[in-house]
């Protein structure tokens, strides 16, 4: 009959194994934490990009499809008035303190994605008030919409930049 090896592991072998496992765990911890942070930043990027794409498409489609009948009036650096045929649509940048900043276009108000708050309770993702502007060059009939998003982790990496000539027909 076969006899089983019932010697088991020696203390030295066990100790070496524990030391190796501890070293591996410590070295892996930092890597895993880094990846977790990277993954969070990636999901933030996706949210901002989706927001930017939807809004840009909505505005651009309106202008491209109705180019001949679009009239624009600049009310201020944060407000543009579009007259598309019989319809009036207003593009407004709303800077808020107690809720996320918003970009409203026509009947729809689009609050910026909630990507966390700082210690004071302010929303991390904001519209840069100094750099962003809405402009209309009446002489050449060119619209320029420049909205910069700021975030503590992403900086000013994301922006909406629309330049549309109205008379290219």
């Amino acid at each position, binding site marked *: 009959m076969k006899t089983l090896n019932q010697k088991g592991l020696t203390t030295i*072998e066990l100790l070496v194994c524990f030391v*190796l496992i501890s070293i591996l765990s410590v070295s892996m911890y930092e890597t895993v934490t880094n990846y977790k942070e990277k993954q969070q930043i990636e999901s933030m990027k996706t949210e901002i990009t989706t927001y*930017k794409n939807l809004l840009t498409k909505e505005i651009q489609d309106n202008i491209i499809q109705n180019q001949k009948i679009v009239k624009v009036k600049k009310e201020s650096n944060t407000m543009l008035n579009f007259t598309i045929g019989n319809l009036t649509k207003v593009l407004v940048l709303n800077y808020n303190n107690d809720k996320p900043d918003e970009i409203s276009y026509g009947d729809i108000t689009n609050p910026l994605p909630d990507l966390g708050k700082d210690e004071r309770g302010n929303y991390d993702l904001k519209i840069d008030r100094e750099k962003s502007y809405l402009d209309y060059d009446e002489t050449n009939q*060119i619209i320029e919409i420049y909205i910069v998003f700021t975030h503590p982790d992403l900086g*000013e990496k994301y*922006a909406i930049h629309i330049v549309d*000539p109205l008379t*290219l027909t």
Partner: protein
Amino acid sequence: MKKKLNSKGFALVETMVVSVLVVVILSIIYTNIYPLMGEYEKREYYDDIDSKYAAYWFKLLIQKSELTTELNINNSSVYDTFTCDKIDSSDTKKETICQELWKKYNVLNLYITNYDLTKFKQFTEQSSHSEIFTRGLIDYVFSLPTYAKKVSLNNAKYRLILEYQLKNDPEKNAYSTIEVKGVKIK
């Protein structure tokens, strides 16, 4: 006779050697995959929504304007560089729109080439050591498919490739491409 089984298991040294080998292999894989992440970040500005619409307006401008000279795209040259002064100066409105778009988008280069990018791709790869094109543009063209047809489904003969500086991040350039049906020569 019953065969006796070897039930000694692995020695500690054997296990350690295998562990070291596994670690070495993993680190080699990691160092090879890491640059791909950088590549992905670079591609964030390839054909994004802003650059695509920018290319669309330039395409419209080129299709609707009268150009002063024929496009120099033939056997000796696979591309032509477009600038606003190629628009017939009697059409001041379009020339002004072109200059305004150029300025507002911080356009660096606008190339027109054949719809089929095979030759242009070969040319950019061959000239990668020279300074005809920026490194960014060469990488962008490399990432594009060849579109290996003479014309598109919309009968577009040409292709426009736009390179411009991002307004919110001047260290980075955005790239976009769009088909162009044809050009009118005065």
